[in-house]
């Protein structure tokens, strides 16, 4: 079945079986391997991407469901060789150790900051509650999101 969609502003197309999961199309067919597969059981959020601006788990969607949608993956954060403030924040605040959850954390945080530019710590923790991290204990991830929020509000994005 033919799937046409927009990923990070670029039109892409692939002929896929209906049972192909969206994350597999991204990674194996379109070779966008920034999106990770973690638990594969809808728990961990490592596969989070944005669909029409909303963060969703790409392991729990079929690729055919994304026909005509606007997707954004972690590859779309960097613009013209410049990291997004969230990416800078995760570096500056050590918001990762192994890095496995990071693409999902970044995409969830990106969508969250678009809607809540000046969040409280509680709101950040609530927003990322569907993304699991086994390394950091979340403290530095929260700091990284705060770092990005401050930077964006100063016009750094």
């Amino acid at each position: 079945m033919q799937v046409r969609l927009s990923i990070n502003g670029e039109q892409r197309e692939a002929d896929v079986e209906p049972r192909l999961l969206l994350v597999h199309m991204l990674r194996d067919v379109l070779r966008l391997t920034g999106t990770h597969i973690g638990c594969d059981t809808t728990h961990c959020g490592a596969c989070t991407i944005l669909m029409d601006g909303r963060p969703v788990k790409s392991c729990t969607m079929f690729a055919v469901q994304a026909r005509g949608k606007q997707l954004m993956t972690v590859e779309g954060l960097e613009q013209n060789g410049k990291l997004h403030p969230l990416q800078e924040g995760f570096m500056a605040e050590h918001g990762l150790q192994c890095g496995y959850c990071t693409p999902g954390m970044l995409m969830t945080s990106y969508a969250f900051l678009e809607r809540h530019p000046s969040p409280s710590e509680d709101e950040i923790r609530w927003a990322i509650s569907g993304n699991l991290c086994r390394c950091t204990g979340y403290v530095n991830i929260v700091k990284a999101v705060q770092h990005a929020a401050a930077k964006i509000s100063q016009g750094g994005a």
Partner: protein
Amino acid sequence: MIPAAFEYHAPSTIDEATALLAKLGEDAKILSGGQSLIPLMKLRLASPTHLVDINGIPGLSGIREDDGFLRIGALTRESELEESELVRTRYPLLHDTSKVIADPLVRNLATVGGNLAHGDPANDHPATMLALGAEVVAVGPKGERRVPITSFFTGPFETSLKPDEILVEIRVPMPSARSAGAYLKLERKVGDFATAAVAAQLSLGGDGTCEHVGIGLTNVGLTPIKATRAEALLKGKTPDETVIKRAAELAAEASEPSADLRGSVEYKKDLVRVLTARALRKALGRATDRR
């Protein structure tokens, strides 16, 4: 994990969808938010040979008050319910529930209709809708019918929906002036099913007695449970501490949990007792504030 192969259908009208379902019979499943069905297909616990994706059918989502009901389109995402100002201010029980279903990412795709039609006693909306006295609207090839929620859940993962019917809308009666509810859920972590959860809805009369009471229990039986004896005890009475405690005991007696990693039978029954009392107190506080 790779689901078994299936044929994908994306009808653009309800008529087209019900005709497809009528033709394909038991081999077909409806794909709504997919947040329960797709995990089951990946585990090969479900292997439908046809999927009928209803997401492209216009008019199946939205939240509005009309004709004495809060009308929720079946394709309304849980996150839309959570963000609805109307739901937050007028239907606190629904708002509470929408915040604890799965996790924020799942709620961006998961639908209210799917949460009910899946028939999982561990899902959160069934107990809430039992407490609210909701009804669902189902459409099949022969037209539309309205099903009271009390006769909707017929067994574990079974509902009274026929294979060629689609749940299109949920109708919650509009609340009277002094009414409110609360949903309390204990979960081991965000995204887990409830160890137990309780939905309580109260309407107070002018004299402070309970005119209407609804209590629904999540994940403590083979189907969602309506705690009818607890409801009957409260009805017509002033909900003081003695009455609330006795109602909570009756709710615990109505539960039929099984032991699993989340806890023993005794623990879960006692949890129902504690959560029922707390949910009733919270609902009472909210209803009193609305005077």
